[in-house]
């Protein structure tokens, strides 16, 4: 793996490497991924591994290319070079819905909900989208029991149990963010890419969301893109740091926190507003 040279040595220094070997192939294995916009290299030979059941945080200053990378991983943006393996299979050439159907689902930094559907129908649709029955045009949707049960479960889990029948426009910002994350969970994904789920949240909402994310380990792996560094170090099993489109460090939170390259590039700066 050539691009290992780009990362610092924290990964090989820590005990995590041995663990990685015993755990077998990672769920998501990104190799030397590149994205250019004209002459600008936005994603610069990124290597990234996310294992089943872990919360892997991706941090980096504004403009580091985090959201671009998420779009490449989820399939909204085609990559110029490099390979994305998901569950051992090359998904680099698959489009977004094909990746989602395999269990690789993203959330969005700017909330994207279905405004003509109620909260519960947003979730019921999300539960159905990655499965079968999207073309069932005769039977009433409410008769699809499995999807309805799943939607209700996720609804309770994201704390919107009392808001089932509400329209999306009636929700508060925090509730909308919760539903945004809920949509990605409804289809039983194997890996969720959460793009800044805590952005713009109050302290209470932020704590609830953190608890929700922490509880996801049992269901799926998480690649958490987040600005709130303190939250990241509380939640993540491993952390990767993206600066100018390249991974400058990757490893256990404590190791990354003390990595000189990271401190120089990112943590030394004052928190963004």
């Amino acid at each position: 793996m050539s691009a290992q040279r780009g990362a610092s040595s924290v990964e090989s220094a820590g005990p995590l490497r041995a663990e990685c070997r015993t755990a077998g192939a990672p769920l998501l294995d990104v190799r030397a991924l590149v994205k250019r916009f004209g002459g600008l290299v936005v994603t610069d030979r990124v290597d990234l591994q996310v294992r089943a059941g872990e919360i892997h945080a991706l941090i980096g200053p504004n403009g580091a290319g985090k959201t671009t990378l998420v779009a490449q991983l989820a399939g909204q943006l085609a990559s110029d070079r490099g390979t994305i393996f998901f569950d051992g299979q090359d998904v680099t050439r698959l489009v977004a819905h094909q990746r989602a159907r395999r269990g690789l689902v993203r959330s969005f930094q700017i909330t994207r909900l279905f405004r003509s559907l109620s909260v519960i129908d947003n979730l019921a649709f999300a539960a159905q989208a990655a499965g079968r029955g999207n073309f069932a045009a005769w039977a009433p949707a409410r008769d699809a029991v499995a999807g309805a049960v799943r939607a209700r479960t996720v609804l309770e889990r994201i704390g919107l149990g009392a808001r089932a029948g509400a329209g999306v426009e009636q929700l508060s910002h925090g509730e909308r963010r919760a539903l945004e994350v809920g949509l990605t969970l409804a289809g039983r994904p194997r890996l969720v890419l959460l793009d800044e789920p805590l952005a713009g949240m109050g302290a209470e909402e932020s704590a609830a969301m953190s608890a929700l994310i922490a509880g996801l380990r049992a269901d799926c792996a998480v690649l958490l893109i987040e600005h709130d560094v303190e939250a990241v170090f509380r939640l993540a099993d491993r952390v990767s740091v993206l600066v100018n489109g390249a991974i400058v460090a990757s490893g256990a939170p404590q190791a990354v926190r003390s990595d000189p390259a990271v401190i120089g590039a990112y943590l030394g700066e004052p928190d963004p507003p």
Partner: protein
Amino acid sequence: MTRRRATALGLLAAAIALPGLLHAAGADFYLSLASRVLVDALAATSLNLLLGYGGMVSLGHAAFVGLGAYASGVLLSEGVTGVGWHLAVTVLVVGLAALAIGAVALRTRGVYFIMITLAFAQMLYYLSNSVKGYGGDEGLSVRARIRLPFGADLRDGLVFYYVALAVLVIALVLLARFAASRFGRAVQALRDDELRAEALGLPAFACKLAVFVVAGIVAGIAGALGVNLQGYVSPNALHWTQSGQLLVMVILGGAGSLWGGVAGAAVLLLLQELLAAYTEYWGFWTGWVLLAVVLFARRGLAGLLGARP
């Protein structure tokens, strides 16, 4: 029984009783107008599926109506009158055309989609102008009509009316079922936010293509009925102004309401009929009505009357 279902059954009963009432009033002439309303309501309902439910603004939908009319018209002029043949050929021809056009057009969005559907429709318009064997730019007149089982014949105005009514009722039932189904919910989500729906695993392109093809086929069936009503189809049936008229019907009636296409077709045709008796500038006055609806009743006439979206 829900209010919605009661309204539907009430309207159906009125539609069934209409020919008898017209006859009693000595106004049999209006039966063919009523039949025209039913045919246009079917065409407008198919565009309502595409535009109101699917969010796809096509400016070429009349091409499918015209194609269906030509498919049936050509069969009639060749002496083929069996209803099975007409149904099979119309569905096949229009379905394949919609599949081919949709496969290209649905790769674009917004104003580009409007333009590309317009371009395809105009191509078919000029094609229909150039088929000299079937009337060319003069249009195709046919004397025969589709024959039905038990000796019934679409030449009979009363038979035609009830056949058109039955087809429209079937289309509306299918549309209502679709709207409440998982596919309907998927299409609704797609209309709200295609990128997000796709990110959740929905094969968006296939969904849109399915809606596009079904809408095209239903429009084609309306066209086939139309040529059997008028005994005539000309290239003008495919012209973009006809597509525009269908759009006006759907927006007037209420895009995305079950009854949108029906209400729009009925009001527009009756308005035209009424105004044409007083002024040749009826288009000017219907324009004002459309303007009022767009400004003051965003959900159209069906929305004004309390129909659910």
